[in-house]
């Protein structure tokens, strides 16, 4: 019984974290803050929810699998977001507030896209 209550609490907390993460991704002003919202609560939510399920699973193969999934998420999720952030930084996405370049960038891009475009098509035909 205590186990059920514990896992209920964990699952609900996890759900809450996941939800907050979702709201953060939607509401945060720029890409880097969104990454922050996503990855931070993402890992927290995952840990809580999977721990909650693990309590229900007891000592079984399922628990080991859950542990694997958790381990996996904890390794891959930050790696992916890290790679994503560095790719974005290299590509010149600026954090919001540092520079108004972002919107200007977009404008320029639209223009270049109109005539040369990322397709490099004009010269071929």
């Amino acid at each position, binding site marked *: 019984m205590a186990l059920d209550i514990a896992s209920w609490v964990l699952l609900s907390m996890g759900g809450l974290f996941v939800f907050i993460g979702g709201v953060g991704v939607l509401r945060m002003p720029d890409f880097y803050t969104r990454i922050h919202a996503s990855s931070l609560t993402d890992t927290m939510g995952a840990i809580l929810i999977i721990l909650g399920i693990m309590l229900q699973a007891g000592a079984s193969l399922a628990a080991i699998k859950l542990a694997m999934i958790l381990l996996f998420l904890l390794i891959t999720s930050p*790696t992916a977001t890290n790679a994503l952030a560095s790719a974005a930084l290299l590509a010149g996405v600026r954090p919001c507030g540092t520079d108004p370049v972002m919107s200007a960038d977009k404008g320029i891009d639209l223009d270049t896209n109109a005539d040369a475009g990322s397709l490099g098509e004009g010269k071929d035909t």
Partner: protein
Amino acid sequence: MTIIFGVFLLTLMVITALAIVHTQHLFVAVILSGIFSLLMAANFFLLDAADVALTEAAIGAGISTVLFLGALTLTGEAERYRSSSVNRVVALGVVAAITLMVIYATFDKPAFGDPQTPVQQHVAPWYIDTTANDIDIPNVVTAVLASFRGYDTLGEVFVVLTAGIGILFLFSATPTRRKKPQTEQESEVESTAEIKFGEGLRHFLIPQVVGRLLIPFILLFGLYVQFHGDYGPGGGFQAGAIIAAAIILYALLEGEARALRVIPQWVLTGMMAGGAILYSAVGVVCMMLDGNFLEYSVLAADPITGQHIGIIVIEAGVGITVTGVLLSIFHAFAGRRRF
């Protein structure tokens, strides 16, 4: 309650599909179709189709996204025209006619989940009973796939093989445009492309380390899915896709060229043909042993053991072919230079 989850997911799916069609940026469309596949997989899972969900997740969301991206690298990623209004009207007309047909058909359809329908009454119970008695593996889906309808699966392996052959055949042609002398600008673009070409994500340190760490585990997991297919969701197709995905990860991290050095194309071609041959060979051996084609029961003294042997071997054949084909296709796309 689960039906409401299903309805929710289905609605998300419709929204995603609309967005895919609406966006003019192909890259976005591909990312969204990854999400679409995932929603589809979740739906399949809710509808009790664990094996299908696994396949959709591995093939639909994983491999097909990779293939689409590979193609986009070569073709460019913006849609240039909106569809013209005439086109749109014609399309809407045809589509509306067909939709009306389909919706007309939904009346008279047995209610969702009704256990008294012909679908549930006629053939299905036989499969579940016979699997327990004659084949004796827990996963009925695998039993139907590999034994009762093994001939379909054989055909399916050959469909995959055909696709592999087709891609290799298409990409063995040198584009005629290449033979023309190039302008200076073009050759410059080409040379920069060449520097970038095939080096993968080698300069990203963290993905490097983590990826390398994970690849053996993914391979191991692939083998687990392959041989656990009799007992749980899984089997040759899913395993083939997962193993191929592991090697694709290696290629992404270390670069195309190195991945091809580890498993050269001739090995892949051998795998493509070998798996298919292995599968059909099982059938032919059954014939030799005085059974019908693919009648695994004759493979051992005890029919049930025979079925087990047959299913394991043909699933291995499926896995080998699928791995070989998916990797060949991936290499064909990734190794192709932009023209």
